[in-house]
């Protein structure tokens, strides 16, 4: 079943008076199946973040359509968009985006509280997730008291607690050391194995090599795709590296 469909997305940024126009996305189309684990790779300026923001409904495309389980998110009204985001999407960011004034527990509750859920319900949901992520014993602590890896696990817990249809991760390993990165990526594998659809945007070859499919973005277009199929992670790592060097040296378009 197709969960997310991105059709002919175009995004043009223009200055306030319409002077300079910058085309961030020229024409992007792809679709994500239920339970998939997709990584989007590309250099700085390739339009990754713009694409993610559009899928996250934080930004609107200049033209084109994004459909999440049959519903176009481009046309959702301003009033409903926050609720839509809250109910359907989970976010994991590079710099964690945890709130310093909330304890780890309250940070995880945040989207549920905004959705107006009762405390009992929230309390019921949190335990299985934190056990899986191994952060049960730091729930009472504050973000400035825990390590980077723990912060990112907290952010993952916050993304998962709403049982979102799609988890969007923007450079989740960007601020972590290699040990914490490995832990987090293993975690993503587990979550995905349990049926969660994940869309990951990254620079890191290692992070991308965990995904089942990799999209390469260049100059605002999908330049190339790789499927993992039955290959091992090491093989994928090699393939991704090769592709990236082809892109970097300016290979022909064969998407």
């Amino acid at each position, binding site marked *: 079943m197709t969960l997310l469909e991105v059709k002919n997305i175009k995004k043009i940024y223009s200055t306030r008076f319409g002077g300079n126009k910058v085309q961030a996305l020229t024409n992007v189309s792809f679709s994500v199946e239920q339970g998939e684990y997709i990584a989007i790779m590309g250099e700085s300026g390739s339009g990754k973040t713009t694409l993610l923001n559009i899928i*996250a409904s*934080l930004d609107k495309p200049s033209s084109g359509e994004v459909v999440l389980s049959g519903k176009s998110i481009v046309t959702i009204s*301003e*009033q409903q*968009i*926050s*609720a839509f*985001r*809250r*109910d359907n999407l989970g*976010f994991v*960011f590079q710099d964690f*985006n*945890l*709130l*310093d*004034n*909330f304890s780890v527990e*309250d940070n995880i*509750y*945040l*989207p549920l*509280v*905004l*959705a*107006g859920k*009762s*405390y009992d319900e*929230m309390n019921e949901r949190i335990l299985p997730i934190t056990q899986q992520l191994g952060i049960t014993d730091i729930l009472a602590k*504050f973000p*400035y008291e825990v390590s980077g890896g723990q912060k990112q696990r907290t952010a993952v817990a*916050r993304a998962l607690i709403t049982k979102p249809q799609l988890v969007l991760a923007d450079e989740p390993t960007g601020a972590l050391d290699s040990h914490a990165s490995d832990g987090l990526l293993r975690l993503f594998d587990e979550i995905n194995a349990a049926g969660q659809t994940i869309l990951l945007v990254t620079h890191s070859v290692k992070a991308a090599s965990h995904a089942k499919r990799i999209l390469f973005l260049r100059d605002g277009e999908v330049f190339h795709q790789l499927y993992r199929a039955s290959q091992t992670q090491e093989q994928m790592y090699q393939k991704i590296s090769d592709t990236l060097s082809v892109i970097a040296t300016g290979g022909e378009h064969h998407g």
Partner: protein
Amino acid sequence: MGKGAFYPRLAVSNIRKNGKFYLPYLLTCIATVAMFYIMAFIASNPGLSQMQGANTITAMMGFGTVVIGIFAVIILFYTNSFLIKRRKKELGLYNILGMEKRHIAKAMFFETIYVTVISLIGGLLVGILFSKLVFMLLYRLLDFTVPLGFSISWQAVIMTLVLFCAIFILILLFNLFQIKLSKPIELLYGGNSGEREPKTKWPLVVIGILTLGGGYFLALYIKSPTVAIGMFFIAVILVIIGTYFLFTAGSIAWLKMLRRNKKYYYQPRHFSSVSGMLYRMKQNAAGLASICILCTMVLVMVSTTVCMYIGVEDALNMVYPRNVQIYLYECQDEAYPQLTGIVEEETAKYNLTAEDMVSFQYYQEEDDWNRSLFIGDKMAKALTGEIPGYKGQEYPSNAYIGFNLPGSDGAPPLLLDAIRNRLTTELAGQYDTYESETRGLMADSVYSLYGGFLFLGMFLGLLFLMATVLIIYYKQISEGYDDKQRFEIMQKVGMSRGETKSFVRSQILTVFFLPLVVAVVHIVFAFKIITKLLAMLNLTDISLFISCTGITILAFAIIYGLVYMLTARAYYRIVS
């Protein structure tokens, strides 16, 4: 353009780019300069010292000048510290981009010069323009006739220039010192150093409750007005201490209690505001407590001075039921009947008739410490024919005679002298002390005293109000920048614009109105003791005081509300 002009130009663009912070700062500077000039102008005005009762007024205005001067130092330093804290990042960036600290200092120097020039010129212009208006207002209040003409007091101008140049130089030195001490990386992150969650300090909460309760208790249960003055100050100090402790420790304890109540805490509206306030309380509490005390001061000051001024007629009526009053203390019973005749004969010599004449004998009791408080009462009894006085005869009796002369609120001094002479010759040895008083003389000095109080009350009230709203404005705006990221995160995880708006509103509402509400509570408790103190000034009209206080609070709340709306809008614009 030459190289030398770089720093002045940089300074101009710095001021422009920081408009959101510099504009209120400049306005504050201009307003403080103008207020100081006006006060100094009045205090040094030669016209005033020729008026009757001018000594008190001049002294009062001199006092006002000193208060404004001290206040100017505090408020300008305070607002400047906000400004410099906000700008640390910008300065750090300059530093990292290769400007040396002495170059930054140069730019700051020019900025200070601009600020000084703008505020002095602007402030003095505003001050000079308004001084005439304020002067007329003061004269109206004092019941003086307003002299014509427009003048500038060079003495006041020089005083203003000296004081504010000194303040601005000090501020510049302070800023340079701050920059010298800091490291570039700290400058760059100066705006957002992380705050830890504050701990609950129960002993302080208990001390706060005890001192505040003690202050309230004293204010409510003081019986005698003579003890009231001393006790009033003790009560005030206790309440101030209590306010500080409760705002600092009590608020944290209270917020933590709210947080422990899961049903309450985990609601969209309370969730972020409770934790947000808890997070900020450590820096905010002292500021809020100061604002609260400032509010209380303004409200008490303005409402009592207004009440005193409005009630001055009543007070005069109470002390002077008749325009001319003569007392003979320890007057023997045989002498008393002759009193009326002597007064009538003497007034007749001046072709005047004494009207509404009342005379009686009374016995002064031990706790009749303030004659004016009971003379009206005695007179009422005398008029209804009820014989006044103390029955035990242990106290010597006094004689009173009061009358009005047509078309005057006093009496010719010669007439009073004549009466006195006749009494000393004809009734020699039959009384102890003679005393005469006229309403006219008293009215002049009372009007100038109370009018001066009112003027000072309003003027300082305005200044404090300005300071209060300014402090809150700066606090909120600079917090807005700190909160920006928090709101971004919350919007990413699904907080809608509407929710953001209502959250901002409720948080700022609390910060704004908590001090005001507590100030009103303070006033309610202080009410009884203030009425007692006013009674010492012969003001017994409690309903007048109630309405004065009510109107003052209302006016204050309206101004406050306007500033709240402005601040909330500015804050919202920053975070969204």
